[in-house]
């Protein structure tokens, strides 16, 4: 049985791992929900510097989910780079995810909202979050 709702929903997550002699990681998420729109953004960065004896390792992952609006979109990007040369080999991973869902229409008009709720009951617009993974083994 379908459920009807006028709720916009976004969720994002980010994770960064780094292993090495000198490491730094940062994972940040931000969500915003306003009148007729909900947006989520996640970014994760991992940087590791290793030694000639112990190679560095990094991994950054972000993901997100948006649902409920008439227009739903997501963009993901993941870049991982390993440079093992010299006395201090370096590994870098960066991942970003952006998701948004728009409750387009006259959201100030309650009657219109009710109409759209019934439409959504049979025709929900949904974008599944995209996921990217990257592994580099030395």
């Amino acid at each position: 049985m379908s459920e009807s709702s006028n709720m916009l929903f976004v969720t994002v997550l980010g994770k960064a791992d780094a292993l090495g002699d000198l490491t730094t990681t940062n994972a940040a998420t931000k969500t915003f929900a306003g009148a007729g729109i909900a947006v989520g953004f996640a970014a994760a960065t991992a940087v590791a510097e290793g030694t000639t004896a112990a190679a560095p390792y990094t991994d950054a992952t972000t993901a997100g989910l948006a649902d409920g609006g008439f227009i739903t979109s997501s963009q993901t990007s993941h870049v991982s780079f390993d440079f093992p040369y010299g006395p201090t080999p370096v590994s870098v991973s960066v991942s970003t995810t952006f998701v948004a869902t728009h409750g387009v229409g006259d959201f100030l008009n309650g009657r219109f909202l009710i109409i759209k709720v019934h439409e959504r009951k049979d025709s929900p617009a949904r974008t599944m979050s995209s996921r990217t993974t990257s592994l580099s083994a030395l």
Partner: protein
Amino acid sequence: MPSANANPAAQVNCIFRQLPDDVLDQIGAQRGGAYHKETEASGVPHESVAAAVGGDAVAVGQDTVTIGLVQNSGKDHGGYSIIVGDATFEASAQAPEAGGADAAANTFMAVSGADYIIKDESNHGGSGPNDASASSELSFVAVNINGWSPEGGPVVIELHQPGHQDRPDGHQPTDGNYAAVIATADAHSADSSLSVAQTNALAVENQFSFVSGIAVVAV
């Protein structure tokens, strides 16, 4: 000549069967089992090989489904490097009015620095008064032998499967507009390596859905 249904390991072994014995000895590989055999540093300078694979799918109609999957994995085995990738994109649409549904799917690839490339691509599509569907599949294997190249330059073997006007075995749209895409890129190398994956997905209620994805690997 590998068959269109051969798995990547069989295709790599097919490539290695074409290599001269002295080249196999130099890179420490063996016929028939080269794909899984790790080699030590052969003393031959490392050569970089890069490959990008991706695609997109779009469906227009009241109820639409677009799905994409991209995988790209590269590994440096010491004397040689192998990149295996594939992309599958499907689109389906239904509309209550005649001619109100359309669907398209596309895949692509690009390889740089490889000695052998085996590419297998197929496209399917079909449409009716109130529905349309399309799918595109592409898989490839790229092999680079460090310090050696085939006479006449890189060898490209295409296992193209012509398109059919049949309905693909895809996802028939249920109520709603659905877009999902996954892209993975893996790079394994003792030398420098790069992996990049990007995806986009968009769904508009009662109108259309769209996905695109690309994965790039360099080892």
